[in-house]
């Protein structure tokens, strides 16, 4: 593909635009939005295609505040104008320096980038990368630009809108509009009229041309095209943007729930609960729309699993309200649910419905395993939120015993249910593996890490509040076994580097904390530690280790950076609060008030 781009560059007329081109402001695109196309293995409406293409090129669906449909039509019908307009953002200053692009300019035009010699040679070099090698950061950024250029080229050539159905084969490739007479002469006339009206900005002509185009296209012979209802569902889904709306509602719900703790009025609690339920309802509605559109459960990639994460928190919180009439429940659910949705919405993840790998298809297990495991993560995420609250309360307000008791009770409930769900998730995953691959356990890194996280939580549940009254040799045995294991395992990880040594030291410290520390404060701190094991399972195995079978939901390296940064800050926070807690406990005259006998 990049080669075609380069060849085209040689013939590219560099036209200096006299004035900044504008999109025709008052065209009615309502009708044309619903034009059915073939795109990326599906038959979505033009609206979805426009969003996908505009997001892929510019990074923002409503680029410069305009409707993506207008952008796509502009690029299709007036390519000469838009070739020379800045559309592609090269945000990374280091990359611009590397490419010797202007340091002050951040947005570049198609023709500008295409005629850029340095970039072209780098794009050409991409073709030389041997198979199996991972691209370095510079290469992946260049490849990203190259993808944008080839996508824009497809649009400028009028190849992006595949609206002519295959008359013979239901799964055949649809064709874009090609000029000249043929079987689709009527469509051609309507297409040209549409383009003409668009270029002139003639709103009346545009409306009538789009109606005609829709009519003539629907008259073409086709073995399959989606019905009007499913197109309408997708348009509706695009219109209401359920997930970004849902997190805003949840955020309001979380603020209300926080305020409810101060207000302490029944009606206000109700209001907070309504906020939580409204956000959850909107999310549920969005998920059901997405399910209908994709014709499969939306649980196939990182974006979709984050949606389920958020949904699981809402669902479990509503359940928990009946067990614990506690104000913390709606607060944590709304807060964490909003956080998960914000991550889904704001992280550089692919939001579009894509074809999925064969192993995920035609199986009931995806609909069982993914929701179960995501809900278990949700519940454990709720646990980690209350665990943070517990640390803060016990470090800074040790006198508030009833607070820490309430939190501890809630925390334990979350931990226990989360562990059961995690076990269920691993069991269902194991059964899926058995039905797809013929073995229920294959020591795949994702399987292993899910078990690692489960063992972490089981350890929390098994460590008693105080030490057992065991003979001394029992403790010696534990230490001996640990030393033996380390002696076996550590040499296998050679060559030893400073980073690895540090990680092993941290690991040994973590082991000691998991086994030895006890009490509500320690349980909270351990719950936070174990949640990072979950995060490692969830994203780390794909992104950090980069191995194994479960590498279908690929994203960008930015995710790893976020993960390490957040993890580091969080664990530093835990360490800091632990110090504060210990210091306070040590400095206060022992025994502390909370240790006083009944």
């Amino acid at each position, binding site marked *: 593909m990049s080669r075609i781009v380069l060849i085209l560059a040689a013939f590219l007329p560099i036209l200096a635009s006299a004035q900044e081109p504008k999109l025709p402001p008052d065209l009615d695109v309502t009708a044309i939005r619903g034009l059915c196309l*073939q795109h*990326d*293995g599906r038959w979505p409406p033009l609206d979805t295609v426009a969003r996908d293409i505009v997001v892929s090129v510019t990074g923002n669906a409503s680029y410069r505040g305009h409707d993506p449909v207008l952008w796509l039509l502009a690029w299709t019908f007036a390519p000469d104008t838009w070739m020379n307009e800045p559309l592609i953002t090269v945000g990374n200053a280091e990359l611009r320096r590397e490419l010797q692009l202007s340091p002050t300019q951040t947005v570049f035009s198609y023709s500008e980038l295409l005629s850029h010699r340095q970039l072209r040679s780098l794009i050409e070099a991409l073709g030389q990368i041997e198979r199996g090698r991972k691209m370095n950061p510079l290469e992946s950024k260049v490849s990203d630009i190259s993808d944008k250029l080839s996508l824009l080229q497809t649009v400028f050539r009028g190849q992006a809108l*595949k609206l002519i159905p295959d008359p013979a084969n239901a*799964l055949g*490739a649809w064709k874009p509009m090609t000029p000249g007479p043929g079987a689709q002469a009527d469509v051609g006339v309507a297409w040209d009229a549409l383009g003409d009206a668009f270029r002139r900005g003639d709103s009346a002509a545009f409306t009538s041309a789009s109606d005609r185009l829709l009519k003539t296209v629907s008259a073409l012979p086709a073995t*399959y095209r989606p019905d009007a209802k499913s197109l309408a569902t997708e348009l509706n889904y695009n219109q209401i943007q359920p997930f970004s709306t849902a997190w805003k509602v949840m955020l309001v719900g979380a603020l209300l729930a926080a305020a409810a703790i101060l207000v302490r009025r029944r009606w206000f609690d109700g209001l907070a609960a309504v906020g939580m339920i409204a956000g959850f309802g909107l999310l549920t509605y969005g998920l059901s729309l997405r399910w209908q559109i994709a014709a499969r459960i939306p649980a196939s990639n990182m974006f979709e699993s984050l949606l389920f994460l958020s949904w699981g928190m809402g669902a479990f919180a509503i359940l928990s309200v009946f067990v614990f009439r506690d104000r913390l429940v709606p607060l944590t659910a709304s807060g964490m649910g909003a956080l998960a949705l914000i991550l889904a919405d704001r992280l550089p993840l692919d939001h579009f419905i894509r*074809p999925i790998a*064969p*192993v995920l298809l*035609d*199986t009931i297990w995806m609909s069982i395993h993914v929701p179960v495991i995501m809900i278990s993560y949700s519940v454990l995420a709720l646990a980690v939120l209350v665990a943070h609250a517990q640390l803060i309360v016990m470090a800074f307000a040790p006198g508030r015993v009833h607070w*820490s*008791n*309430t939190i*501890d009770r809630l925390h334990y*409930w979350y931990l226990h*249910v989360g562990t*059961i769900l995690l*076990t269920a998730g691993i069991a269902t995953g*194991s059964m899926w593996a*058995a*039905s797809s*691959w*013929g*073995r*229920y356990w294959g*020591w795949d890194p994702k399987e*292993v*890490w899910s078990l*690692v996280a489960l*063992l972490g939580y089981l*350890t*929390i*549940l*098994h*460590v*008693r*509040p*105080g*030490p*057992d009254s065991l*003979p001394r*040799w*029992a403790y010696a*045995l534990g230490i001996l*076994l640990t030393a033996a294991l380390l002696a076996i395992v550590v040499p*296998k*990880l050679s060559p030893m580097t400073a980073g690895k040594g540090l990680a092993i030291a941290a*690991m040994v410290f973590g082991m000691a904390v*998991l*086994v030895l520390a006890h*009490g*509500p404060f320690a349980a909270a701190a351990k719950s936070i530690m174990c949640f990072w094991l979950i995060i490692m399972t969830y994203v780390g195995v794909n992104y950090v*280790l980069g*191995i*194994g079978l479960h590498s279908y939901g690929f994203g960008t390296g930015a995710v790893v950076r976020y993960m390490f940064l957040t993890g580091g800050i969080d664990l530093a926070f835990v360490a800091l609060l632990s110090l504060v807690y210990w210091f306070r406990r040590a400095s206060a005259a022992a025994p502390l008030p*909370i*240790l006083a006998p*009944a």
Partner: protein
Amino acid sequence: MQTQSVNKVRRGLHVVGSLWFAAVVLVLLLVAMACATVYESMHGAEQALLTFYQSSWFEALLFLLAANVLTAVVVRYPFSKRQIGFVMTHASILVILGGALVTKHFGIEGQVSILEGETLKEFHVSAETLALTNRANSTTSTVDLNPKVFGRLTVAERPQDASVALGDVRVRVEKYLPDSVPSERIVNDNPQPRAAVELSLASSDHEDKTWVLEGETAQFGPVAVALRTVATVEELKQLLEPSSEKAASSVGTVKIDVAGATVERPVEECMDKAVPIGGTGYSIRVLRYFNHATVGPNNEITNASDRPVNPAIQAEIIGPSGTEKRTAFARFPDFASMHKGTATSNLNLIFVASGAQVDTEPSTPIEVLFGPADQLRLRFTAADGIVTTQEARLGEPVETPWPGRRLTIAQRFDHARMEHAVTLADPIRETRMPAVLLKIEAGGESSEMWLGKSQPRRLTIDRIPYELLYAEKQVPLGFSIALTKFTVGTYPGGNRPRSFESQVTITDPANGRTQGRIISMNHPTSYGGYTLYQSSYQLTGERATSVLSVARDPGQPIVFAGYFGLLAGMIVVLGVRVNDQRRLQGGDDSAHGAGRGNGRQTISLLNPGARCRQQPPNDPDPPGRKEPRPATWIRPGVGVGREVSR
């Protein structure tokens, strides 16, 4: 006395079944598995399996887990109603571990790679075997190779005692290399005498080494090296003084091809006198002899030096239709055609310079003269044709005509033999080529041979043809499977694969019945105790190869039953806790008088550690002795109940 020892055992069991021991084992497993994934990212899945998950210490860890869980259940017998969840949970863990053990010992997992149109009766598993086949009567002896050795990344000497034997031929593995490269080396055990020397050419910054065998040439970069054995002193003398004697006798012969006949005459015989050439009617007269012929600007030929660098003669051919002057170069016999005349064009004049002189042509610039007796000499022929000969001793450097370079004879063998060996690839490559060194014993004699994986070697022992094969273990399916068709389904309008589907025909040899089956992703098929899964595929040219996973696992239903028991048990435990909670919320009083140990049970929802733990009636450690704890963790009932009801 007896009760004391019983108490001791009981105490020991309490340690093994204690929560402390459980926590230790859980954390050790956690750490081992986390490290294993890091190891896997460094060395690959296969090695992680061998080094971690299938290692004996990892199994020991799992055994400790099983011991802990089992003891924890046993010491709590007899169980109260409240402990049903606990017992279910922990017994299910034992069931899962037991199922895994069944899988390990009775389960089998492998693959078939089957080409469209092909029929297979066997599948291969990840274990390896060594097979010896007598090709005359098609009998085979096979031995399974220890998977803990074969498949690892480390070299193993005499990895196992097992051997394959057919008749009196016995083959045993002497050495295992995880990755091999074929190599050649010179050894000094040839029963026939054959000379070889190892030479080293050193300059100030680097050193080249090479072996050269008698009768062969070796290369030092672009420079050729030859070895010549010199049997007698006379021969040596001749070599050292090449031109003196021979030049006196003859500089060479004149050879004339004409009308199908060839006539040869020594140059000296024809010098300056016309000699008739047989009965052809032609005569030849050699006018001049050149040692070092050089063609000048006007096509005249002159002698550039006295060294025989480019020997040539100038001759006059006297024929019936006239006389013609021609030049013949010993080293460029075709050059004559360029001087094609008219009168004698059907006559070909060739000058063959005498052997000793052509020898000096600089094709082998370095020559090792081996002998007579133990003497060693080095003869160098520089680019300008100057020949120098020096005596040499083992290990002592000799100056060469090339400035700054010294040549050393490092080793000499008198019974040299080129041995084709196999050596360890270093570093081990991603696409490994494992190899084994085999010791073949037959009729009191033994020999060794290298064998690469999946590379059958044929050999003949006592006139019987055999074949040796070191390859992945093949297991008979018990039926035959043929791939009729393999199809890749794509998403609409693209070539992104949506499904893989193998249409197979299964034939049962017992009744000869044939049936068609379709195997696709997530839709396996079962036959004859095995389940076949679509695993992957390869497209090689027109025909596709479908890779199917084959599995038979009697442990699987046990493990799945364990999963259900585990989940049910955990839910029961949770239910008991929630019920306790309800009761606490319902009324404070009930919490107090609910029987033995209930005080702890009722707060267990607040108390992660108290999960399922109830002291047995004959607990050696009475529950009274406890460390000081935060009030909420030890204050039963009332206070907590109040907190809850808020």
